[in-house]
């Protein structure tokens, strides 16, 4: 019996898609293009409010014939995607004026991508998972190349598209293998069938699992599937880079947690071993190659690769506590990353790229507030207390130690120290070098709001982590 009543659990996603379509029409009607962004922000709040009302009703149920789950885990990630979308719109406002992009399409693609991510976070069936992933991926390919006239942007889009399409083909092969073995695409039924049909030791099951990990590894940029990330992050327009260094990564972690814990929970020994190797490689490559970068967007790309490695420790722990520490990490990661990219956008102005490390030399003398904010973001990314970045790393490491992965934690701490070098180098450039030429910083009200939100959240979570931690715990139980 197909029950369409529960379709209301999908209303936040439906609203997002409707807003996306309306923004496309609005682009044709209004002359002042900022209106599109503000209408989009209103859409984000409406969708988030509806989602909040559904949560307040206390429902935790499946929709679409058991293919979509509305639970605390999904809702926590949806909150991440909402914050990411709202902050991205705020930091895009100035930039889209400078670059003169296709505005209506830009904002509506952000919404489509977010709807895809939300579908991924709630997917309990491989079919919905695949559809959500493709909706997200196809939108972000176009976003990466949204500045058609610029070669770097088009090149980023091409690289992202080909590797993304390759990874989704690999994901599909994994889906077909596990479907063939277990006879189902539902995650719970797959887990039951693995147990019932005694498929846990079957090499084909492990092969399917490896295909899944490779495909998710592409999305969250684990080494050795990270080759696209630095090029795409550097070439794509900076607000898009900020958007896709968080959204698809958090969505990738959400589905990875869901698939590995729910469907392949019985193969935990296998997947935690594979992920351990990948995590060490990821942390090492991300931290070490970032040392050699002079372009700040490229440096932040390698830093985001390294951060994926740290967050992975939470999944490797294989416990509910580990999963919640990963969610905690992703939540804090939004603020520090968007903040850092927002500063990069502020240094971008007509004719000045503002992406090289030299552009930051002596910034503290001419723009003390901007430099102080960048200092907070860099400290947070490096994991220095009292910023939120420290809390994020600390809890991931605690959960990893509880799961007896002490060696892994030691390695992670060592690479965390290496990574402090390149974050602090930005600070050194800002505070201890003489400026070569006067830096131009363009600021605007929406940008200031975004910076205020990110800074306050970083310092607040850093000093009072209790609220976030209990919120995460509540989400994973509910």
């Amino acid at each position, binding site marked *: 019996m197909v029950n369409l009543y529960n379709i209301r659990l999908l209303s936040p996603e439906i609203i997002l898609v409707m807003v996306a379509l309306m923004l496309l029409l609005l682009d044709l009607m209004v002359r002042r293009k900022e209106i599109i962004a503000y209408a989009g922000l209103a859409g984000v709040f409406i969708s988030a409010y509806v989602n909040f009302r559904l949560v307040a009703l206390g429902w935790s149920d499946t929709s679409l014939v058991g293919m979509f789950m509305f639970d605390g885990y999904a809702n926590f990630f949806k909150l991440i995607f909402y914050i990411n979308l709202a902050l991205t719109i705020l930091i895009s406002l100035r930039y889209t004026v400078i670059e003169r992009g296709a505005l209506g399409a830009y904002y509506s693609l952000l919404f489509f991508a977010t709807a895809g991510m939300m579908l991924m976070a709630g997917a309990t069936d491989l*079919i919905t998972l695949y559809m959500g992933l493709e909706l997200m991926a196809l939108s972000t390919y176009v976003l990466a190349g949204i500045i058609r006239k610029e070669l*770097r942007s088009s090149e980023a*889009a091409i690289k992202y598209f080909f590797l993304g399409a390759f990874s989704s*083909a690999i994901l599909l*092969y994994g889906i*077909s293998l596990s*479907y063939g073995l277990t006879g*189902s695409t539902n995650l719970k039924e797959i887990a039951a069938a693995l147990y019932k049909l005694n498929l846990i030791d079957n090499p084909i099951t492990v092969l399917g699992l490896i295909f899944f990990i490779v495909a998710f590894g592409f999305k969250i940029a684990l080494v050795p599937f990270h080759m696209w990330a630095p090029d795409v992050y550097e*070439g794509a327009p900076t607000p898009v880079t900020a958007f896709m260094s968080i959204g698809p990564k958090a969505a990738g972690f959400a589905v990875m947690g869901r698939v590995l814990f729910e469907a392949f929970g019985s193969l935990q020994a296998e997947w935690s071993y594979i992920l351990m190797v990948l995590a060490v490689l990821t942390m090492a490559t991300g931290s070490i190659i970032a040392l050699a*970068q002079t372009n700040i967007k490229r440096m932040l790309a390698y830093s985001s690769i390294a951060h994926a490695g740290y967050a992975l420790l939470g999944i490797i722990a294989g416990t509910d506590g580990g999963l919640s520490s990963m969610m905690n990490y992703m939540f804090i990661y939004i603020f520090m990353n968007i903040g850092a990219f927002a500063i990069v956008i502020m240094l971008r102005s007509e004719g000045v790229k503002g992406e090289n490390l030299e552009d930051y030399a002596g910034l503290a003398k001419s723009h003390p507030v901007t430099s102080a904010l960048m200092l907070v973001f860099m400290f947070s990314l490096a994991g220095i207390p009292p910023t939120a970045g420290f809390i994020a790393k600390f809890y991931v490491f605690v959960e990893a130690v509880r799961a007896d992965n002490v060696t892994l934690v030691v390695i992670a701490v060592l690479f965390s120290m290496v990574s402090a070098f390149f974050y602090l180098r930005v600070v050194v450039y800002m505070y201890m070098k003489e400026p070569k030429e006067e830096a131009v910083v363009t600021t605007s009200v929406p940008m200031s709001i975004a910076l205020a939100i990110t800074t306050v959240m970083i310092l607040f979570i850093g000093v009072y982590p209790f609220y976030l931690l209990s919120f995460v715990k509540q989400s994973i139980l509910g």
Partner: protein
Amino acid sequence: MVPLSWYIVLSAIVFSIGMFGFLVRRNLIIIFLSIELMLNAVNISLVAFSHYLQSINGQILVFFVITVAAAEAAIGLAILIAFYRNKPTVEADEINLLKG
């Protein structure tokens, strides 16, 4: 009747050809065709499994895959054309502005 294993082997072979083409060929159009080959290899195995298991899910997924592949082709070729207008080449080795 053709046994299931033949379909699975066919699917694995086609998938491997696609993957090999993706990794080895340098022309972007050929690389794109290789990805399509991989997707269709998955479709073969999904339909075969679906028939063998007498479950409809696999065939539903095939329809979704075909639809998404069409969307992917539209977006991929659009990106390719946008790139070609900036730099007239379809050789993967010449897409080398971003590196390091």
